[in-house]
């Protein structure tokens, strides 16, 4: 009942004209980002973040969150109409969605994806409200030893679950941890990696890193080629799927919602993994799996519901534990720190108004998005006719402005450009940037917890295994590492055998 009362309080906060306008603005920007290929939600949130510095935390966060799930809605439009995913989690939608569009059923595919996304968004937010608050209550028992083990587990989970190449993901994480040590240290107040540059005394701002490695690097990759997109035309009245089609997809939508939410509660999974998993589930439970790939409605409804529910799922560890589950939630978490909030279980006590207002706004954001994404799809789809050559200079300008806004100096702009080059080559070499970003965010927290835990135990490392929660978390890391090690060994053995044959 507490959750419902708190949510009602949240609605009271977020139902002001200003907060509603921010939710609508975020939903609009998110839909645009989802529709236009070449820039993901993480990068956009990072670019927008410095511009929100002057705002209060609640409206700023409402806008960023609605941008995030707005991108999930919008991504399907490009996948269905052009067969080019607007963002990574819509890749799987393109398989069935575009086939449906080619059969003259683009409206059905777009409608089902919007209805599935809406249902998943609402149910996911209800799950988020109940799970995050319960988990936060439990994690109030955490001391420094538990926090250290939790941060460590968060980082390893992100790598083991989400990383394509474990070695490169670990390297990315190590570099992020190294970047996190830049600045004045917490023990003796010594300046590490500063070399007399006063701008580095406070450390490397994560916004600079995100805008470089996600924002500009993504633009550079997209700008490699001239991009020309011709979307299919859809009539307004064709956009609403028949009741029969919607009813037919009801279980696919429900399964997608559950898969998306619960998978994304695990740090590192993210909407992309959730949508692929949901597609796999739909194929395996279907009576006609052979028809998948030829335009199957469940193949659109399931993954689209899944990637929306995944957004709520990824916010559970972010709100409850202060651990980001994906690149996008890392940006949100970083934003919360910049707004002066302390992410983690105490946020439900110290900034309860903020948390519940943001959660309540997610219900409203989803309503705004279904309105935007059903009747306004033809309008948004026409955005695809704007040449990318005109869009990317604007994105680069906003990145420059954003980097400048961090400390009102050009040093940060230069640093962002250095990270952009690094990010571009990391993309080319399949080195994921997300573990680096998360390590930069969580590294100082990990170092502080380690320091506090050892200080309390008078230097005894046993504190990490004597405390049950910490010991459990460390055991999970050990088991995960063992599993990944065995899997990698077996994979290599199979590859050698295959090559020999």
């Amino acid at each position, binding site marked *: 009942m507490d959750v419902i009362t708190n949510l009602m309080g949240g609605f009271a906060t977020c139902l002001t004209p200003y907060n509603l306008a921010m939710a609508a603005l975020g939903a609009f920007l998110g839909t645009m980002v989802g529709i236009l290929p070449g820039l993901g939600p993480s990068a956009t949130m990072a670019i927008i973040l410095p511009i929100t510095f002057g705002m209060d935390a609640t409206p700023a966060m409402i806008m960023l969150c609605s941008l995030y799930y707005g991108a999930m809605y919008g991504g399907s439009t490009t996948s269905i109409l052009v067969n080019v995913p607007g963002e990574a989690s819509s890749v799987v939608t393109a398989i069935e969605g575009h086939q449906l569009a080619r059969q003259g059923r683009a409206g059905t595919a777009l409608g089902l994806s919007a209805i599935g996304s809406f249902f998943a968004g609402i149910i996911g937010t209800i799950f988020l409200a109940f799970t995050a608050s319960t988990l936060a209550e439990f994690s109030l028992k955490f001391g420094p030893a538990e926090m250290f083990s939790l941060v460590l587990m968060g980082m390893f989970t992100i790598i083991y679950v989400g990383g394509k190449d474990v*070695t490169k993901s670990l390297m990315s994480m190590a570099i992020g941890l190294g970047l*996190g040590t830049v600045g004045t240290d917490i*023990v003796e107040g010594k300046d590490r990696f500063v070399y007399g540059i006063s701008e580095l005394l406070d450390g490397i701002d994560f916004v600079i890193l995100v805008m470089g490695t996600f924002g*500009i690097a993504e633009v550079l990759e997209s700008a490699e080629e001239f991009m020309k997109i011709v979307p299919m035309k859809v009539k307004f009245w064709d956009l609403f799927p028949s009741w029969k089609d919607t009813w037919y997809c009801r279980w696919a939508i429900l399964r997608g919602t559950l898969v998306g939410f619960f998978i994304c509660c695990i740090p590192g999974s993210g909407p992309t993994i959730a949508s692929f998993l949901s597609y796999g589930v739909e194929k395996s439970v279907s009576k006609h799996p052979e028809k998948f790939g030829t335009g199957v409605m469940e193949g659109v409804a399931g993954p689209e519901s899944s990637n929306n529910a995944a957004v709520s799922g990824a916010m559970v560890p972010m709100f409850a534990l202060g651990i980001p589950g994906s690149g996008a939630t890392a940006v949100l978490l970083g934003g919360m720190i910049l707004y002066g909030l302390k992410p983690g279980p105490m946020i439900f006590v110290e900034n309860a108004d903020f948390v519940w207002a943001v959660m309540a706004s997610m219900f409203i954001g989803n309503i705004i998005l279904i309105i935007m994404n059903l009747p306004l799809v033809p309008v948004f789809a026409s955005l695809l006719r704007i040449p990318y050559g005109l869009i990317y200079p604007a994105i680069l300008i906003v990145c420059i402005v954003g980097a400048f806004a961090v400390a009102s100096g050009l040093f940060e702009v230069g640093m962002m450009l250095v990270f952009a080059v690094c990010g571009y080559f990391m993309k080319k070499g*399949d080195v994921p940037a997300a573990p680096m970003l998360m390590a930069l965010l969580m590294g100082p927290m990990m*170092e502080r917890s380690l320091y506090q835990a050892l200080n309390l135990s008078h230097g005894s490392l046993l504190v990490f295994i004597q405390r049950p929660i910490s010991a459990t978390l460390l055991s999970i890391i050990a088991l995960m590492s063992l599993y990944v090690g065995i899997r990698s060994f077996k994979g290599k053995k199979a590859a050698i055998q*295959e*090559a020999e044959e």
Partner: protein
Amino acid sequence: MRKADRIYGVIGLGLSLWCYLESTKFTYMTQFTPGPGFMPFWVGVVLALLSVYLIVDSFVRKPGKKDNAKILPEKHALYRVGAIMLMLVGVRFAMNFLGFPLTIALFTTAILLLLEHYSILKSVGYGVAYAAVTWFVFQYILSMGFPKGILGI
């Protein structure tokens, strides 16, 4: 990708050495707790181990599909990426002298004219429009203190 992995491995080794050298400037442990040198030391060690693994693996593993993939894009794409980066660096250094709106106008015009092959008129038009909009939003409305430069705006 094998060649790329070796390059990344060498870069990783370089970074790990840097971390190690930095860590030697500080105390590793205080009486009970880690000192300022603790974290850079272990980051260096872990990075070195991973880099060595990446290099060794690139020599030992059987070539797979990904190993045939090129890390660098085609020449014309590389030219586009390089040109955009150069222009961005130009923005970084020109802004103090030229000021925000003029730099943005020149930057947009240069991209549209040289990379997107728009006509001079259109490029300049878009350049001026982008500069005006960004100046109005960020400098006029949001009062961000950009360098003023020779135009004084």
